[in-house]
């Protein structure tokens, strides 16, 4: 079938209408000492120590920045265990036994509206840095770096598009905590001294439209922006183009054009950080896929083990079949080799699919991948260049522009894993 593919069939409509189940008090909480961006980490506590919620228990060291580790519940530090991290690697996790009292650390203090009104941009940067806020859409890029920009910002875009199929965590967050979203946006507007903010949602979400068009009547400067229903509408460049009409050049930062964008979960994290001076300790996730019995949305404490959650969705469907276990969306999410993983701040969803073995057919050059590519690459040509190991040709075809959205492999008529070839081409091109 020779066609541009932008719509991916999914089950969002059903899942998005399910209220999130609260599962905020697991018996143990696990916190990673290192992560994908920070390869080293120190701990400030010893085994047997008592920790409070939001207490600073360690520091991760990355090449460009440091990231504080906060306890997400109160209890006792019982040891270090190895579990799978979101990126698919076995990583050391701090294991904390929950005492179910949820006593907050003294650093967590509520700011009054007057105090907040006096905060400057530098104060915001400091707060966000101390609360270790990162991009919660999945990039885990430190948010304070975004706050450090010295460019004049005149538009704030809130990315609530959630264009990956199957996931509805942000949708539930928008519906269940609209005031946190709106207050968070107001704080961001105050920080950048900017008068305009848009909440970008898919135009097919009628429930969000109804809720927010009511709420935003009383709020000045924030508007709802309905954008396309296709994938990858949630990609920064595509969203900015749909919302404002500005086409960013490849590699250009949005702040160059006076735009700054946040994921909606990040903005709620900002609200918590500014209002209560606490890091992200709870988040929404979706558990779905054809490999489990009852897909559900959850609000969980960061650090919950996924093994605790699986019984709550009534376990796996067809347990004798091979399963694929994915953290993140089905198009870009990483597959992990075991269900022994931990929910970190940036996990948006857990997908369990039955393993489908697709038979690869020879490429008939139908061109669907070329038509579908959002960055106008030619995936099939890159694939052929990789097969021929022709470095010069690979470089000329510019695979580094690829955002790994996965549409080339999704749309492939011959079921070839084109995206894998592009990943190889990226390695070639960097040599």
């Amino acid at each position, binding site marked *: *079938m020779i066609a541009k593919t932008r719509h991916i069939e999914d089950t969002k409509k059903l899942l998005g209408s399910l209220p999130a189940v609260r599962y905020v008090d697991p018996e143990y909480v696990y916190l990673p000492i290192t992560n994908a961006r920070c390869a080293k980490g120190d701990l400030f506590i010893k085994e047997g120590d008592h920790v409070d919620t939001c207490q600073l228990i360690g520091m991760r060291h990355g090449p460009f920045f440091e990231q504080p580790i906060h306890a997400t519940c109160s209890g006792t530090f019982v040891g270090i265990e190895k579990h799978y991290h979101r990126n698919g690697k076995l990583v050391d996790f701090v294991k904390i036994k929950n005492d179910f009292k949820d006593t907050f650390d003294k650093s967590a203090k509520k700011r009054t509206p007057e105090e907040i009104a006096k905060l400057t941009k530098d104060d915001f940067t400091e707060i966000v840095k101390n609360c270790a806020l990162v991009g919660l859409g999945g990039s885990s890029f430190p948010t304070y770096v975004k706050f450090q920009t010295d460019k004049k910002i005149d538009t704030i875009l809130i990315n609530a598009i959630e264009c990956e199929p199957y996931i509805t965590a942000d949708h539930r967050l928008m519906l269940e905590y609209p005031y946190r979203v709106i207050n968070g946006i107001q704080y961001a507007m105050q920080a950048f001294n900017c008068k305009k903010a848009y909440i970008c949602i898919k135009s097919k979400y009628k429930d969000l439209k109804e809720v927010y068009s009511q709420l935003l009547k009383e709020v000045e400067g924030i508007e709802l922006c309905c954008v396309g229903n296709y994938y990858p509408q949630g990609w920064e460049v595509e969203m900015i183009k749909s919302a404002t009409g500005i086409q960013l050049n490849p590699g250009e930062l949005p702040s160059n054009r006076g735009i700054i964008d946040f994921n909606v979960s990040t903005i709620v994290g900002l609200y918590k950080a500014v209002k209560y001076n606490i890091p992200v300790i709870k988040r929404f996730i979706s558990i779905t896929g054809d490999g489990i019995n009852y897909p559900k949305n959850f609000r969980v404490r960061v650090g919950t083990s996924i093994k605790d959650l699986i019984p709550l969705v009534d376990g796996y469907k067809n347990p004798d079949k091979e399963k694929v276990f994915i953290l993140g969306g089905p*198009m870009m999410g990483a597959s992990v080799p075991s269900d022994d993983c931990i929910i970190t701040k940036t996990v948006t969803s857990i997908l369990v699919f039955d393993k489908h073995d697709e038979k690869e057919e020879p490429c008939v050059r139908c061109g669907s991948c070329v038509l579908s590519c959002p960055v106008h690459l030619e995936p099939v040509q890159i694939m052929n260049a990789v097969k021929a190991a022709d470095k010069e040709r690979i470089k000329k075809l510019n695979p580094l522009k690829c955002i790994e959205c996965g549409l080339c492999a999704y749309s492939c008529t011959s079921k070839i894993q084109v995206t894998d070839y592009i990943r190889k081409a990226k390695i070639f091109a960097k040599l």
Partner: protein
Amino acid sequence: MTIVKESAPHLRRKASVTRMMVDVLIALFPTLVFSFVAYPINTLIFYLTSLAIMIGAEFIYVGLRGILPKDGQKHTFKEWFNHAYKGKYDQNNILAPAITAIIYTLIMPAGAPIYAFIVGAIVGIVFGKLVFGGLGSNIFNPAAVGMLFAKICFGSQYQQVSTWYYTIPDTVSGATPLGVINGGMHASIGDYQLFDLFFGRIPGTLGEVYKITIIIGLVYLLIRRSADYRIVVSYLGTFSILMLIAGLSVMGLGTGINPFMFLLYNLLSGGVLFGAAFMLTDPVTSPINPPSRWIYGMVAAVATVLIRLFAALPEGVGFSILIANMVACVLDHYEWSSSRYTWKKFLTMGLLIVIPALIVFLAIFYGGTYNG
């Protein structure tokens, strides 16, 4: 329960090469039935021969490709058979040569001698497809290669066949109406009614002449998205523009020919529609990005028009498809291939219309004659 790793994306679109090929077979079906009704005996022999040759050649090819290594050990026949065919021979190895065989039969004249037909089929599948590596690797359209080979080698031995559907009038002795045109167009344009052209009551090949069924097949292919509309539109569009200019020039000579009738006559005669629907749109032999596909269709149209109007052979479409197939490789070269429309590509498209239009106009209007 076991958990396995898999690289992203984890979802796949419901589409397959097999579905595309079945679509082409369905689109060919009305034409196939029509050809069978018109020439029952010849057609049945031809279909069976070409299907047997092409599917058989693919079968032997898969076997040869899976030959066991010479490691000194003795291998039984069964071992070789399993090694060569298990998991490697599937429905695509039957469907693809079947499509080639049907297209090849439909573009052969009913009066071709059987030995010419067999030689053409073998050359088409072996040298047009299998030497390049089978499905997805061929550069040229195998059916066109076979048909032209047979035509060039045995063309003089082709005969006219009469059936109940179409009886050859005594006065005409050419191979196709285009052969008649090339002999002297002014006389022949009135010889065939548009109605006859539309329903194939004209001398010609087995399947190319039934325009009505070809159009049905083309519409089906476009609706199912198994053929790229860009190629069809650019080919037929460019062909129409250039033929209209040729028609105007002919009218300018004072012949009294209606240019639109001239255009319609040219569109409905020969293999233009069949080539546009089933041969040019073959994704394997066409370029992969959209702007190149527009250019590819235009190149084929220009070649068809120039060969039709000025060359000695009546077989414009077959040659122009092979020429366009060659150009497709050039268009796909990594130095300039991209899916973006640039001004250079628009310039190329413009030149592809303007220069042939000038050639056609000057050659007919000032040259005074065209082909006889």
